[in-house]
């Protein structure tokens, strides 16, 4: 048996391979669940019911929103070959920054109620962006591997949030629970007359579309792609390597920070421990599943929103632990990777008799 590189990869072929591997991933996880004592058909039925009612769909969109934002953000990093695993940490920084602004506002410091929304938005994006610049600078100046640095910063960010929630930012009126004050309505994204989910959908839709345009029609989009494919050629081509890298990574972090804002202002209403069930990590898988192509990334993130919502249902219903969803996601990730292989290589079996004669 030998592997031979395919000469051309058609788009339709590419999509069908990905879908095929996805189905395989679901089958394997179903098998695992069955072995561990849960009914696989019941589990999958639950996932589908999340799409049936309007209320469910709304919940799916709400849950997907932070993932979409972070995943689109990650596309900027991954295109440049910067393996940013730090979306979770950048998301947390966004949450921290937004919470900080709200607390200041409540204490009387701030720009006023009307400007609260722009303030928190700017703060969360700035915080996320800056947090992501740290590993980028470390790579540029010291060649430090960004996989490890972004990961370490994730844990640092989560611990920082934990500290603040349990300590200086603990809500005195919160009955002793570790959580911050609630976010006022003026800090949420809202369009009068439109439901929350639709509002988010519009915001996210605009960002997705913009990103698509940037990738295809701007010099920055082109240069960042070249940077990711071949560093030498990009220098030869005159791409300003460092500044392009920093810009792209900053955008990734900013979008993740914005996702954090949505989590604390919209989804939960305050910051508390475990606010993010790993949205940042889900975003990584979603963006790779979508092949870094914004519309596809959008759709994969919705899939993950579905999985998360379904997971909640299952936990309430049949007491399936939440980590079950993580297993599915990990297998989806594996499926995505293996799909790459299937797309790129063709298996050739050397037939004996026509092959080398002994």
């Amino acid at each position: 048996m030998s592997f031979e590189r395919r000469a051309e990869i058609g788009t339709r072929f590419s999509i069908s391979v990905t879908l095929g591997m996805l189905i395989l991933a679901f089958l394997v996880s179903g098998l695992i669940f069955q072995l561990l004592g849960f009914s696989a058909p019941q589990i999958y039925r639950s996932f589908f019911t999340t799409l049936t009612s309007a209320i469910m769909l709304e919940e799916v969109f709400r849950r997907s929103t932070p993932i979409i934002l972070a995943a689109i953000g990650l596309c900027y990093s991954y295109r440049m070959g910067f393996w940013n695993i730090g979306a979770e940490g950048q998301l947390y920084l966004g949450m921290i920054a937004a919470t900080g602004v709200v607390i200041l506002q409540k204490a009387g410091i701030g720009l006023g109620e009307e400007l609260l929304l722009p303030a928190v938005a700017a703060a969360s994006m700035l915080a996320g962006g800056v947090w992501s610049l740290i590993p980028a600078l470390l790579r540029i100046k010291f060649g430090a591997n960004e996989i490890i640095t972004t990961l370490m910063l994730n844990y640092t960010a989560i611990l920082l949030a934990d500290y603040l929630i349990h300590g200086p930012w603990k809500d005195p009126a919160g009955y002793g629970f570790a959580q911050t004050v609630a976010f006022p309505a003026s800090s949420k994204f809202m369009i009068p007359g439109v439901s929350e989910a639709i509002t988010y959908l519009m915001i996210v839709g605009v960002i997705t579309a913009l990103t698509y345009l940037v990738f295809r029609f701007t010099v920055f989009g082109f240069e960042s792609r070249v940077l990711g494919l071949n560093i030498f050629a990009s220098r030869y081509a005159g791409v300003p390597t460092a500044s392009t890298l920093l810009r792209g990574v900053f955008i990734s972090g900013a979008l993740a920070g914005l996702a954090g804002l949505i989590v604390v202002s919209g989804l939960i209403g305050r910051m508390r421990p475990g606010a993010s069930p790993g949205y940042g990590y889900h975003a990584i898988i979603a963006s790779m599943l979508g092949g870094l192509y914004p519309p596809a990334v959008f759709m994969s993130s919705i899939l993950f929103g579905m999985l998360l919502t379904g997971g909640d249902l299952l936990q309430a219903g049949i007491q399936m632990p939440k980590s079950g969803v993580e297993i599915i996601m990990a297998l989806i990730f594996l499926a995505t990777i293996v799909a790459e292989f299937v797309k790129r290589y063709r298996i050739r079996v050397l037939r004996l008799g026509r092959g080398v004669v002994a």
Partner: protein
Amino acid sequence: MTFEAFSIAEAILASAISAGTIYLIASVGECFTERAGVINLGLEGIMAMGAITSFLVTLAYGHLVAILSAALIGGLLGLLHAFLTVSLRLNQIAVGLAITWLGLGLSGFMGAPEVARDLLRALNPNVPSHLAELKQAPRLPDLRLGPLAETPIIGRAFFSQNVLVYAGVALAILLWFVLFKTKWGLSLRSVGENPALADSAGVNIYLVRYLAVMVGSALAGVAGAYLYIGYQPFWVEDLTRSRGFIALSLVILASWSPLRAIAAAYLFGGVEALQFRIPLRGFGAETPQLVMMLPYVITILTLIAISLASRGRIPAPAALGKPYSREE
């Protein structure tokens, strides 16, 4: 020094070695793997699987079987990793992350009370299955090495630990010997430096890489087992706390040498030990999180330090991370 200072120093040292062993076993295994040219980011997930396995199997059959099963599970996950990265030549980093998430998810799932209960019953019906819900298992007993164990300060640390701690050191020395002093080690290192050369010299690249990954993963499984039954026998969901990733950076710090890994691992163990002492002395006892950040921050600083020290010329195995294909 006062008596109190003595006993604190003693406790810290003992903790350092105890905590460091987790890193030691895992990173020594990864040294082996990376020397063959494969980077295994799945350490974290494999550790978690090793931990949950040792939890359940200890309750069912005792410590020895538990350690062996953890190693077996680790080896199997390593086999998966090797298949994907060596035979299918997929990106080692992506595969490693996938295995980590799979391991973390699976172990979390298996650790949930209902599932754990069923699993324990399946493993050994004679054991009361509700034990699994207590999330606790008997700890490995300490082995006292005779009168040496009474030595002040270092006695508890060096001569009164459980068997896996001693095994860790022994493993490090053994692997160092194999890597640098034997014929097999030479072949393995050449696979990591220049697989094309090793191939034309007749070395079976695929076999070597498969074995290296499986050995490394099996050891990661054992490290997970140690984490649970040797160090902290309470099952919580985030038991591993990214120690697997820290072990990876330890390998770089140790310049891919198992002997240097001993020093590096105990150093990090020391940091971890301190982390629990400082709050107790009134340093923000209610909010220890800031101190808990230490290992992560130090890891980052370590990477910077390494880069500065070697002036950009990192002595990694030359073919690390690159899949090998004869026809490409």
